[in-house]
């Protein structure tokens, strides 16, 4: 059991990414083990979202390697990449719900080509909706949902394939403090229920406090600090300290 929990799930080595002359990621190396919840904290424009997008090959890197569940994602062909992506859930900043589809159709979307029978798909939809507490929203359109509800449905959609890894891109951005806390607690619940490995990109210190096993601080394209929430809170480094003020 201990060995399984210590298995390396994500390994990034010397990652570099630039947009023109702008070096966004300079030399990123990171190893994440199964069951961990790692929070990457950083200011706006520090490269957090670029980092998480490189992890699922939404962006290509200039240098370095990313290994997810033992596969080097930049050497996979399209079919292999899609199979790997089905083991990864991704909650986007704005939830990225498909505007023209109902909540039910949004949730069913990742299952379209799975060949599962109708009853099983319906059961999965209701299961993930119950997990996020929004069973009644099943037939609503995304435009009828509040910001917090959209995030919950986005989370439900990313959970429907029972992924081994969950990536959260600014899960609490744009929400009021109460809803932000609810979403942070929900992330924690989901992590416990499905035993996923989670990587959360945020600048919300409350979200980090609730969810993180381990925190990393990204600044100017490099990790400048790493540790548990309480360790970093005690740091005397000016930049690290500024996040806790």
């Amino acid at each position, binding site marked *: 059991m201990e060995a399984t929990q210590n298995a390396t799930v994500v390994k990034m080595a010397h990652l570099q990414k630039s947009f023109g002359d702008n070096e966004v990621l300079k030399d990123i190396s990171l190893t994440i083990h199964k069951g961990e919840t790692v929070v990457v904290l950083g200011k706006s424009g520090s490269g957090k979202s670029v980092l998480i997008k490189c992890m699922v090959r939404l962006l290509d890197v200039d240098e370095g390697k990313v290994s997810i569940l033992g596969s080097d994602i930049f050497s996979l062909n399209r079919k292999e990449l899609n199979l790997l992506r089905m083991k990864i859930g991704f909650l986007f900043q704005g939830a*990225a719900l*498909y*505007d023209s589809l109902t909540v039910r159709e949004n949730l069913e*979307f990742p299952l379209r080509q799975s060949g599962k029978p109708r009853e099983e798909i319906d059961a999965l939809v209701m299961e993930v909706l119950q997990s996020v507490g929004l069973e009644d929203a099943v037939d609503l359109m995304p435009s009828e949902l509040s910001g917090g509800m959209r995030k919950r449905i986005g989370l439900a959609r990313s959970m429907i*394939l029972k992924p081994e890894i969950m990536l959260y891109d600014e899960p609490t951005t744009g929400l009021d403090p109460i809803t932000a806390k609810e979403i942070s607690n929900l992330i924690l619940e989901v992590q416990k229920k499905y035993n996923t490995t989670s990587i959360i990109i945020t600048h919300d210190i409350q979200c980090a406090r609730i969810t993180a096993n381990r925190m990393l601080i990204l600044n100017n394209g490099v990790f400048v600090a790493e540790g548990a929430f309480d360790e970093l809170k005690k740091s005397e480094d000016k930049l690290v300290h500024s996040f806790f003020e």
Partner: protein
Amino acid sequence: MSKPVLNKMTEPLLLSKSKRDAVTLKNKNDTLKGMKAFFTEVTSLTFFTGRFFKELFQPPYEFNELVKQAYLIGNKSFYLVAITGFIMGLVLTIQSAPTLSQFGAESWLPAMVAVSIIREIGPVITALICAGKVGSGIGAELASMKVTEQIDAMEVSGANPFKYLVVTRVVAATLMIPVLVIFSDAISLGGAFMGVNITGDVSFSLFFSQVVEAVDFADVFPAFIKTFFFGFIIGLVACYKGYHSNKGTEGVGAAANAAVVMASLLVFIIDMIAVQFTNLLINY
């Protein structure tokens, strides 16, 4: 002595040689940049078209989305196409009647209007309306999906957004625009019948028999075939502009606008090629 008035036309003539050289160099650089942008766009669109044909024949197929898009394109454009088609037939007839009557050829009016509508005006006007209605709709929809990361979300869920969004819309436009053109032609002929009866008195059976007599296979078939190309180019350009949009919400408007302009221009170019090709075949 009063100071000479400078404007943009006279100013360069009064510049020193070094300044004139700088202006010339800037103009050359702008031209080169424009040419580079044009060839980059053409290359990118060519690769996009290549990917479309590659994905078109590879399973899995998105039949449900194809049917939905075909319904949306056909149903949502039908009334617009019907109204414009009717007006087109009516106006063409009313405008042509005085000229034909000067030559004592009023009886040729149904035949002349029918050939004009079926060969040229019906397909081109309907395609232009669809370039505006369908092209802007698809361009804005895909651009908005791109900006709000919905396309990225499809990609990371293991789906193929190109197949789901692009292939279905291009095929739907290719299949539905010919259908809309057929409707438009029929309604235009209805408008023409009304136009003929404003100035004269022609029964429907006489009007219909004159139309059928005037129009032959060489009029209908090439005109029908080119509508598939119109549909294809409208769908393809709209998807291309939407799929490659950027610059946030500003990019959504720009994508919709560019989709309409480029698709309309390409409709005319395809029409010109189709006419030349048809003439060559007929003469051969």
